[in-house]
């Protein structure tokens, strides 16, 4: 397993480098940079010519893109993600606390999504074509279809403005509650549908029929024989969703004022702040690779038939 993990990590390196290279090449053809974007609608380039040149020199933006790329890769390998032109601070400082915030939000939302979505999907499959199944899948469809910004504002209106159970501007742990709930309920919808379809498919298999014919209770059949296979399918989706969410749940972060990677990513692009953008792209790529690797490892843990060594 260790060899497999190391091999996967080695394969990930050129992927990350390739992503960075493409970003730098795009940066080279974009007709503006963080310096001119800073003066948006206030100061003309002619007026600020000297200042623009000084800032570009200070941040190395006056160099050709391949020189910037080489320097960036060298610095990243030493743990230095550069300095943001707009924030005037090391990128690592800004990314650090935001990544922790995004991890908190992602973890809490996925937990809510799993706790609600997976049992709902299993229950739907076990009671297929009953009112319970139809009801659960209707709720699931609603969750998939409802825009995140609308759902978020709806929760604020209900819990903070009408019921006044929590403040609109919560502090401390309470600040995580509504964004995690919004995202978690949205995540629960696809998880429930995946769990349902996987469970229905497994319940049709011969080994389930054999278990039932041996007189096992339906609960035992589901928990002992059908659930592990269902979890494999669900884990694939969780892995993908985890990677996506780590890349940033932008809308949720903006609505709830949750300072995560997604919100910063959009700002970094608007600011044309490439040091920030590149760091966020690195994290997103890393999150996807890491999440998929963890899911693959978990496959082997859940299903002993999966063997990566052979």
């Amino acid at each position, binding site marked *: 397993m260790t060899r497999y993990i190391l091999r996967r990590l080695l394969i990930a390196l050129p992927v990350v480098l390739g992503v960075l290279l493409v970003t730098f090449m795009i940066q080279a053809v*974009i*007709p*503006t940079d963080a*310096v*001119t*974007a*800073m*003066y*948006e*609608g*206030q*100061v*003309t*380039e*002619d*007026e*600020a*010519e*000297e*200042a*623009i040149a*000084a*800032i570009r*020199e*200070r*941040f190395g933006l006056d160099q050709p893109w391949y020189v910037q790329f080489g320097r960036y890769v060298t610095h990243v390998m030493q743990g230095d993600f550069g300095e943001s032109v707009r*924030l*005037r*601070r090391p990128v690592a400082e800004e990314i650090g606390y935001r990544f922790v*915030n995004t*991890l908190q*939000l992602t*973890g*809490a939302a996925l*937990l809510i999504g*799993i706790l609600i979505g997976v049992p709902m999907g299993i229950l739907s499959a076990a009671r297929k074509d009953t009112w319970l199944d139809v009801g659960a899948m209707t709720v699931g469809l609603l969750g998939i279809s409802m825009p995140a910004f609308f759902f978020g*504002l709806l929760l*604020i*209106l209900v819990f*903070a*403005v009408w019921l*006044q159970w929590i*403040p*609109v*501007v919560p*502090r*401390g*742990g309470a*600040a*995580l509650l509504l964004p*995690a709930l919004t995202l978690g309920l949205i995540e629960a919808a696809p998880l429930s549908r995946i769990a349902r379809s996987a469970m229905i498919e497994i319940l049709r298999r011969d080994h389930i029929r054999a278990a039932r014919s041996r007189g096992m209770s339906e609960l035992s059949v589901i928990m002992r024989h059908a659930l592990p296979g269902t979890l494999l399918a669900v884990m694939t989706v969780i892995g993908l969703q985890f990677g996506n969410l780590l890349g940033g749940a932008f809308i949720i972060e903006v*609505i*709830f*004022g949750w*300072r995560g990677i997604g*919100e910063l990513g959009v*700002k970094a692009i*608007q600011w*044309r702040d490439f040091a920030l953008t590149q760091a966020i792209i690195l994290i997103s790529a890393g999150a996807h690779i890491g999440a998929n690797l963890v899911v693959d490892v978990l496959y082997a*843990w859940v299903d002993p038939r999966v063997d990566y060594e052979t």
Partner: protein
Amino acid sequence: MPTRRSLVVSSALVPLSLSMRPREARAALKELRYRLIEDPESLHSGQSVSLTVSTCLNFLHDRLIYLDNTGKPQPWLAESWSFSDDSRQITFKLRPGTKFHDGTDLDAAAAKFHFDSILDPKLASPLRGTISALESCDLVDPMTFRLNFSRPFAAAMILFAASAYGFNSPTAVQKAGRQYGRRPVGTGPYMLKSWSAGTELVLVRNPRYRQLRPDAVNKGAPYADQITLTVLPEEGVAFSALQTGELSAAELQTDTVDRLRRDPRFAVVTDEKAKNFMFLEFSWRSPFDDRAMRDAVSHAIDREAIVRASYSGYGTINLNPLSSGIPGYDPSIGATHGTPYDAAKAAALLDQAGWKMGPAGVRAKDGKEAKFVLRSYASPVTDRALAVMQSNLAAIGVQVSVSTADWGTFYPSLLRDDWDMALNRWTYNDPQVMVNLFRPPGHRRKLPADAELTRILSGVESTLDPAERQKYVVEAQQAILERRLLVPILTNHAITITQAGLQNYTFDYLNQILHGDVRMSDW
């Protein structure tokens, strides 16, 4: 040994438990809570030109001068100032006794430290771009310093009244180093207590504060014990926080304001001296190199409809090439030289210029149809303005295809030759904005050489005597309008909703609040 299930549950609970902290006790405080649309980048005055940063710095810094209700500079931290005969030097004498939050003195050395940091290429201050004519700063005596300019630069006096030109404590800057942007120390009514990145800034009263402006209500320490600036980018959330009383005041978009204006729990504060300016400009490629075409388009735009569509009526219809909040704006110039909405006149002008109406409702001249490209930056406000303009121009037989992009894409694209008209918005505090945008070849390098216009605009830039400068400002507005260099459209007003009991929340000439004056009526 933990089971798989317990591992999964406990690892997922970690993020929740990490974020749980006791709620702060805040009831006993005299606290005011305001909305910030975004987290400020840094509170190092001199290291940002962002409007959000400027808003925050206004709590922390007083300035050399302020502008009175007529836009005339008045002493604040400076006791007096004088200009050299060639207008290339301004000498400021500071009032004695002003202290920074850290107890150190504000003297000429501290002022020089600030200007030197703007000029230092190693520090690469973005503020340098706003005052490119500044060359150096000299100490004259312990309370007097002199600023040397490469050329006379009249806009400097208005810049010095802006919060970005508030002074930092040299001791604090040296002590905090690169972290100073997160630990600013100024001379203003409030001091930074804490900054929870991306969430809120907490400021506390400066007990030593003395307000030197004669137009202030409160000459001593501020009324509020504490100010909390909460970062709330989303409009709907800020609206909800006002309703639940969690915010004392919040600037809102005009669409949202209408829902609160009739509610007695709130008051609407309108800042009509806003310095922004929305205008339509031309690429100068054929047929827009023809004054008749520009004249026709100028008369075709229904500004009143745009103010209603884009800002729910919260704006000033502008016929001048200058924001209505800038010193020197005179509506009588727009009345005599401007191009008010008159669709019939616009159509007649096109007829006279040889643009004949075709069967599909699109005019043509010499085989070329009146189909043009109109560009702008993407925002809900400009989208609505563009829709009105598209309709206005269609009504006179001019068809425009509209395209928008974010500012970073839109603005550089105006250097190319593949557009005809562009809807733009600019914010600047001084008539210098006309120089920056329209002194040939203009900010997008499209305007033809024009010695007379260059002479007038250079006069606006370099004349320090206010009365003499005003003559140039008037002349410049007339010249720009006569040449139909642009179609002025509007200046929108900033709208703030406050709790009804909030007092003295008023804007000065440079759109800043005197925060030491603001209080709740029941304090």
